[in-house]
């Protein structure tokens, strides 16, 4: 940023100093325009995330903050009750994610492929809107709607799907898939629309059918977006809470079979019947969840995403 002292006097110098002044003005404007957004974002989003880790190293139960190092973590993983709850929630969360990955993402791809197959004319917009409607609902509504529909009293399904430990979590996951399938659909739809027409035309001229055009031409081109939506699904499901809480409350039964990390986190810092609120342990659970999300996301971007991108035009 410092102007280079040069041998030239004359017009060059004034031009350079003028640019220097302009540059300083740019800094001023840049700061003035970004500072309000930066302040709100840092204070209420970025800093709390970092501070969670900070708080997890303290004990504030006595009213005074006392640095305890990793003691909260040791407690979380060695206390029989808390560690059992944690591993249970983590296992359930993995299943919750796996069902989304195996059902929601491929279904979104199928719907996006159908919408961009070139076989629809004016109806594309209508289908797109109808298919996306569940995503616009709040989970509270989704939860109760499905609870009513699968209610054995209505006779559509004769089994208490949400009342049985074996079926409760898959049922709940599929409700969530029903609601959110619109997200991968729209995202992959936008990606498929961006596939250049001449590439498809070339495939058609070569005599490729719709099926092989999709898998050999279109899909490799949208592989980075497919990978991205898979990792976003991971982040979202490991950050999940609302649907489970809306349906089963903060100690999600039967017998914690639908407890995921989000509800465990809530229960830890907020408390629930039979459990006292513990802010320090809450921050500890949050930090562990953050780590779980961070490691996998970093691994994805470090190892896999670049490889998927190499197919890109």
């Amino acid at each position: 940023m410092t102007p280079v002292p040069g041998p030239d006097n004359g017009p060059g110098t004034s031009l350079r100093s003028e640019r220097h002044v302009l540059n300083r003005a740019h800094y001023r404007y840049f700061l003035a325009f970004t500072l309000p957004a930066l302040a709100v974002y840092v204070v209420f989003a970025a800093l709390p995330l970092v501070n969670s880790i900070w708080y997890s190293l303290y004990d504030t139960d006595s009213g005074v903050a006392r640095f305890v190092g990793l003691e909260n973590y040791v407690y979380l993983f060695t206390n029989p009750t808390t560690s059992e709850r944690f591993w249970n929630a983590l296992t359930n969360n993995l299943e919750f994610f796996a069902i989304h990955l195996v059902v929601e993402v491929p279904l979104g791809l199928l719907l996006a492929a159908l919408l961009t197959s070139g076989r629809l004319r004016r109806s594309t917009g209508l289908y797109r809107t109808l298919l996306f409607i569940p995503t616009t609902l709040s989970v509270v509504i989704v939860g109760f709607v499905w609870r009513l529909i699968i209610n054995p009293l209505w006779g559509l399904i004769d089994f208490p799907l949400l009342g049985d430990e074996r079926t409760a979590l898959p049922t709940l996951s599929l409700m969530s898939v029903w609601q959110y399938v619109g997200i991968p659909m729209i995202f992959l739809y936008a990606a498929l629309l961006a596939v250049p027409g001449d590439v498809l035309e070339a495939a058609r001229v070569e005599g490729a059918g719709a099926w092989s055009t999709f898998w050999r031409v279109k899909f490799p081109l949208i592989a980075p977006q497919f990978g991205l939506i898979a990792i976003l699904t991971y982040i979202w499901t490991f950050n999940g809470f609302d649907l489970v809480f809306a349906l089963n409350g903060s100690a999600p039964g039967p017998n914690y079979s639908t407890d995921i990390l989000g509800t465990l986190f809530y229960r830890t810092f907020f408390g629930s019947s039979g459990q006292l609120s513990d802010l320090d342990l809450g921050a500890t659970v949050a930090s562990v969840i953050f780590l779980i999300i961070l490691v996998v996301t970093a691994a994805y971007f470090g190892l896999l995403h670049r490889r998927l991108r190499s197919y890109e035009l």
Partner: protein
Amino acid sequence: MRNNRDRAGSLVTHALLIFFALLAVAPILVIVVNSLKTTPGIFGQPFALPNAETFSLGGYERVFARGQFVVNYGNSLIVTVGATVATLVLATLAAFALTEYKVRFAPLVGGFFVLGIMLPIRLGTVPIIKTMISWQLMDTLVALVLVYTAMSLPLAIALLMTYFKAVPAAVKEAARIDGAGELRTLSIVLPMVRPGLAAVASVTMLPIWNDLWFPLILAPSKENQTVTLGVQQFAGQFLNDYPALLGALTLGAVPLIVLFVVFSRQFIQGLSAGIGK
């Protein structure tokens, strides 16, 4: 031959899409239709339209008598509009600066914002609670507006940057030569990014209106409850009064569905451009 195959192909495509569209919409229709029936009507023929015998608005009457829907709607409106407007203003300023001024650390600041699209903000809840307590904002709508603005800024900024980048430099130069200051230049450019603003507004509103987590934690009292939290609590208490329960669910769902259908183009544009970066 080719024609026949094409026709069969488009038939299958339509059939599949109609099937999935029904799967998406039918559960909602079942709820709306049954909310207009009596309890025996709901259980006698849950999948029939209401007739003279089973039609009743009793559920809605009880919702309005016992629930707090008017207050809840007001709260949701204040929070959603407040946070959306704040997001639009702050994101516009920031996105303009990030694309306009080529200062050294601009990419760094931009990256820091964009990172927030993926960050699970909720995990910072414990420190957020502490901040709100010390600022005496616990159980206020202001707390929700602040958190939602922070949460919405990353996607809004990323989206608006793509729109600002598309504005020709000549427009801005012309404004500056005419002696316009930077804020004035921004206001001259603003109409050119209007589709971006619409997209940002529509993707910002939806998750805020539907969120359950922060209302539950930061504004749980009866007078500060949003619709989403209100429906959750009402439905939890009136599990046996099916007409009222269904009425509450309908009242919670319909406004958003209408809003979405009206703005679906902007919304989908915003969503697909936003996460596609």
